[in-house]
């Protein structure tokens, strides 16, 4: 009899599973790339038109040609890469500390009910605190060191990250909690094997948001302490403004935008991969 059941099951299984094709990598990349390229061309064209119309003198609103030349000039200069490297290093380190902090705070706040009620709203409140308000405290704590910059970055990003984790924990499907409980998972084990992984998508979107905050805080924070032999993007942005260097400012903005887009794409790819693996492609949200 079992053989018969097994046959039937195999038949049903074969029917239920149908390979749906995914497009090839090349065609997916192309599908993403062409509208972007055309968008860039479109933006440049409009920009050039505005400049050509003579609405504002070139020294106020330089054309794309000038700006791209300036950018090209920068790209040919070792200092530019050093600045990007310094800023990215700070961003990454600050973000990493923020992730750790966010994880610890988020985990504590999400699981301990009184902590939750006590600090839940405070965390979001902190998110609205402008970086500049932290400067005195940063210097008080860390003097004129890079740590002061990182402190500002962490305070900017950690609340979002903690909030992402808290939201994830909150919306962990109770059925999974019960399944974990039945399996004998308790406390830390339950946290590690069920709650944390279940919170991952929400945590990821917290990370993405945290990055934006971290980056903006960093741009402000890099003016806080200027460290020997280290030029940075935030400083370059400020210098360009200070020197009324419109092409330089726009070139730096393009650099920031490109970094922002690239990072967004990385997060987007991670998010997509996660959703695909988990079959979360369609969720009620």
């Amino acid at each position: 009899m079992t053989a018969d059941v097994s046959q039937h099951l195999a038949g049903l299984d074969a029917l239920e599973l149908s390979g749906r094709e995914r497009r090839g990598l090349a065609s997916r990349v192309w599908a993403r790339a062409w509208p972007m390229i055309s968008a860039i061309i479109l933006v440049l064209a409009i920009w050039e038109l505005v400049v050509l119309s003579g609405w504002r003198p070139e020294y106020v609103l330089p054309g794309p040609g000038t700006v791209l030349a300036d950018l090209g000039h920068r790209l040919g200069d070792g200092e530019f890469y050093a600045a990007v490297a310094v800023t990215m290093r700070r961003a990454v380190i600050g973000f990493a500390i923020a992730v750790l902090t966010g994880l610890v705070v988020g985990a504590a706040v999400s699981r301990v009910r009184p902590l939750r009620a006590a600090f839940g709203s405070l965390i979001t409140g902190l998110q609205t605190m402008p970086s500049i308000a932290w400067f005195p405290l940063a210097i008080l704590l860390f003097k004129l060191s890079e740590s002061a910059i990182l402190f500002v970055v962490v305070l900017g990003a950690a609340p979002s990250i903690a909030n992402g984790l808290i939201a994830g924990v909150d919306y962990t499907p109770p059925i999974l909690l019960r399944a974990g409980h039945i399996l004998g998972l308790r406390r830390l084990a339950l946290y590690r094997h069920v709650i944390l992984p279940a919170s991952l998508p929400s945590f990821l979107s917290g990370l993405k948001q945290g990055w934006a905050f971290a980056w903006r805080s960093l741009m402000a924070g890099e003016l806080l302490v200027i460290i020997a032999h280290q030029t940075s993007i935030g400083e370059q942005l400020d210098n360009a403004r200070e020197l009324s260097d419109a092409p330089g400012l726009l070139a730096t903005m393009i650099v920031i935008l490109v970094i922002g887009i690239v990072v967004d794409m990385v997060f987007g790819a991670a998010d997509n991969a996660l959703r695909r693996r988990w079959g979360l492609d369609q969720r009620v949200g």
Partner: protein
Amino acid sequence: GGDGGSSGGEAAKTEVRLGFFPNITHSTALVGVKKGFFAKALGSNVTLKTATFNAGPAATEAIFSDAIDATYIGPNPAINAWSKSKGQAIKIIAGAASGGVFLVVKPEINDVADLKGKKIATPQLGNTQDVALRYWLQEKGLKTDTKGGGDVSIVPQENAQTLQTFATGDIDGAWVPEPFASRLVLESKGKILLNESDLWPGNKFVITHLIVRQQFLKEHPDLVKKLIEAHVESTAYINSDPAGAKEAINAELQDLSGKPLKPEVLESAFKNIAFTNDPIASSLVGSADHAVKVGLLDPVDLNGIYDLKILNEVLAAKGEQAVADR
């Protein structure tokens, strides 16, 4: 705000938009506005609209964007505005203030030699004070670089932050303008090691002057003249009635941003600044030269940055001595 539709067209202008900083080095403007010198000079057909800025870049942006017609500003932003616009955007039409910049240090520092290995703050990389410090140190044989290295580590940071870091001992000194110099001395027991005036011929160097949009100057020389008349009157008033001027300054500061200076700071800072119509052109050119020498600026041609014709007319009418543009 300057959202009025007057963008400097040919039509009769009914508004002059003047910018300045709520700052003691901009006292000429503070007093002129408070005492109504500008309003009076412009007459009843033309209204004065003022805009206050926290720093040079915003003022320059506003001039560039045709959001203001004239502004009081420091030498650096003026040079930047001139060089970035290839001499098209602005003209310096009058001087306003001179001096009032000091190197304030911790009490235990007694001379240049003691500065070795110390951290000195300046307000902004490449600004007048920053250049002056670097040039001075270079003259004294101490090496610096733009990234805080060398014999003396120069840390550009906002003046407000300098107050904090000096108080907590994170920096050993600062080359700053008033009122920060006085505050460092009065509030944090700093010691004045050097008065920048001592480095300049005649103990004079420009700290604030008045610039206009070139287009505005071209289209409304009459208004520019009235502006300068008020400016000159204000300068005269400050010099003739310091007590009244100080009162006006603090009243205007209170009005504008609710942050008057403490009496002792006002007293000390005011005394250290000279208010003059002379833009002290030599110091501007000299400062630019120094900047080139310490490697912070590509050589710029400052020829034509001044247009002192109207100022000299006004001064002549008052029987005062003309000022030079080089």
